[in-house]
């Protein structure tokens, strides 16, 4: 498949802060490309350059084989952007919102009405089409946010953290919608800091940190980057942050990541230190509720590559 987006040595700074530092990546047609990184990593800046909201300082960006700097408006016609915040008019009906944004891509008349209704149907809001979004739940607003970006049937859909702050049911609906859009032929760039979302839907993943692309590939390819390690996940009844430093001294442990009552311990693949870990918990009165030998998650990959958590 051909590249739909080609980014070479992209750089962008804001005053003294380097937001994007020489990123190069290609996104192929009909893939769901996940852009993963903690807040402030440079994901949104990259996306904003791609959809024409920011000017790049250096680098070359091509979309659909056309240079972004020269053919921006032409490129924009084939891009749909789902912004991070819910950008819909609360006092326009759902249908009117979709029609408004679709009309800005050149749709008109019967085609505008039909495609707008198709978009609403796609996100499951047909019955709410004549209602104002101010009466919608957070999840419904998120779905409308997506409908406004897809009515004109774009070849490339850029989704910037589209599931922030919504209930699990709406999240699942959105993730299913993303997969469906992809199966219908759209290429999708999906940015998030939720690794489980990326694991669930993305065909390829790019990990960004401090403005640099530190790794990219399929989930399996990323796992192989840290194949010399394994993960032990312990769930306790109490917080174990205080014992983290002591536990780290156990031979074979390379990294520890704790989140409230759950601790993820990364060890060398050859090392068998599970006995030492359980002994440590016993000695320090840490009640173990469960213990699992985890697969290498994206969290582990990220931790291994950057030395910090995605949620830092």
């Amino acid at each position, binding site marked *: 498949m051909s590249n739909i987006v080609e980014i070479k040595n992209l750089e962008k700074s804001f005053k003294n802060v380097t937001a994007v530092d020489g990123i190069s990546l290609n996104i192929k047609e009909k893939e769901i490309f996940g852009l993963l990184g903690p807040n402030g990593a440079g994901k949104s800046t990259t996306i904003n350059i791609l959809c024409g909201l920011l000017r790049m300082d250096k680098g070359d960006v091509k979309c659909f084989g056309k240079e972004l700097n020269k053919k921006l408006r032409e490129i*924009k016609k084939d891009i749909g*952007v789902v912004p*991070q915040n819910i*950008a819909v008019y609360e*006092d*326009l009906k759902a249908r*009117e919102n979709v029609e408004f944004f679709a009309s*800005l891509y050149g749709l008109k008349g019967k085609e505008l009405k039909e495609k707008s209704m198709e978009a609403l149907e796609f996100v499951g809001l047909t019955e709410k089409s004549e209602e104002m979004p101010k009466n919608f739940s957070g999840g419904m607003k998120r779905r409308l946010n997506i409908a*406004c970006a897809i009515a004109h049937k774009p070849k490339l859909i850029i989704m910037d953290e589209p599931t922030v702050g919504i209930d699990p049911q709406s999240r699942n609906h959105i993730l299913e919608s993303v997969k469906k859009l992809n199966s219908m032929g759209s290429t999708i760039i999906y940015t998030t800091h939720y690794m489980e979302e990326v694991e669930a839907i993305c065909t390829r993943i790019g990990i960004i940190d401090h403005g640099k692309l530190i790794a990219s590939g399929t989930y399996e390819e990323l796992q192989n980057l840290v194949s010399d390690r394994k993960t032990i996940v312990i769930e306790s009844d109490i917080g174990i942050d205080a014992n983290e430093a002591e536990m780290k001294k156990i031979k074979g442990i390379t990294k520890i990541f704790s989140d409230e009552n759950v601790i993820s311990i990364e060890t060398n693949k050859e090392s068998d230190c599970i006995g030492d870990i359980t002994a440590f918990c016993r000695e320090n009165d840490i009640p173990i509720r469960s213990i699992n030998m985890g697969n290498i998650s994206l969290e582990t990959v990220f931790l291994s590559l950057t030395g910090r958590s995605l949620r830092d």
Partner: protein
Amino acid sequence: MKTLSIAKKIIFRSLRDVNTMLIMCAMPLVLIFVLGLAFDTQIGTDTRIDLDEMHITYSVVGEPGQISEGIEGMMDELLTEGSTYVEAEDKEEQIEKLRTTEITAYVEIDENTSTIVYYKNNKVNTSSSILETALRSFAARYNTIYEIAKVNPMALQGIVSDDVSGNYIEEIGLDEKYQPSAMDYYGVVMAALFVLYGFMTPLDEEITDKSAGMTARIATTAIKPTELFTGKVLGYVTVSSIRTGIVILISRIAYGVNWGDKPIYPLLVILALIVIMTSLGMLLGEFFKSVGAAAAASHMFIAVTAFFGGAYMALEDLGPIAEVGKYFSVIWWVNSSITAQIYSNDYSNMIKTFIIFGSLSILFFGISVLIMRRRRVNIYG
């Protein structure tokens, strides 16, 4: 199409905001009614023209001839008992007298160059405007006769003898029933005042669109910057025109506010005000980041503009600050040009208003575009 989409969105959203619509339409109508009733006698007394009180001085450069004699004849007919039309020597002294309202007007006649220079006292605006109209009429007649004389001197006899009385001004300017009542006065100034309040619509919408991410989202679409800008201007101007149109229509029907025999001219002045306030609202919308700060600054601006524009009471004899301040008030420009057009058929202020409002609108819109270009890449797209 995209331009119309932007305009349509603005119009739909504004018209659906029932509370704002009610305030913007009902408030001026209530104020016109209350202030119109309360100040009816006062405004009537202040604005009625008393020709007996006019005192005019003049000077003649060169030998007195046809022009100075013609004007003197006109004054004889125009001025009633108690008025004066006397020759003066010192021009500077006469101008000083004008400042201190000792005289109504000073006319400088140059027989050598066939020119008339008219100095009027703005504090007695209506009276001096009538005189000005009369002089313009005289000048037009003089020029016509002069041109005819060059071609066919014999034809003059008939013309001059047929129109000895010299109908220098239209009767409309002298008939008491056409003088502005308080209701007429407040009808004009309240419509203008609420156009002023209307500039908060683009201001508020631009700021909230920025903070809600709508501006950025629209910038990611395929719309051209010119389409976006034109759509916004069209939308905001339409919204303000609808609101003001309702106020003008109801004030005409319910209170009988006089919008003149040729209402197109007052309406064009109001439209010019709507355009300049839209341009100001859009410009300030680019500067301000919070609606609260913008609203505070706007209310202060409106209060000062309203005061100097005479929106609450007519500013007569309130001293030099008011005299200078009124020129900075768009309400004063609107009111003076509409009043002069309706009551003395004088278009001079209206032309100045169009020039000033037009120039400022272009300036404000220009700065807005420059800021947009700097802020958004898609302007270059």
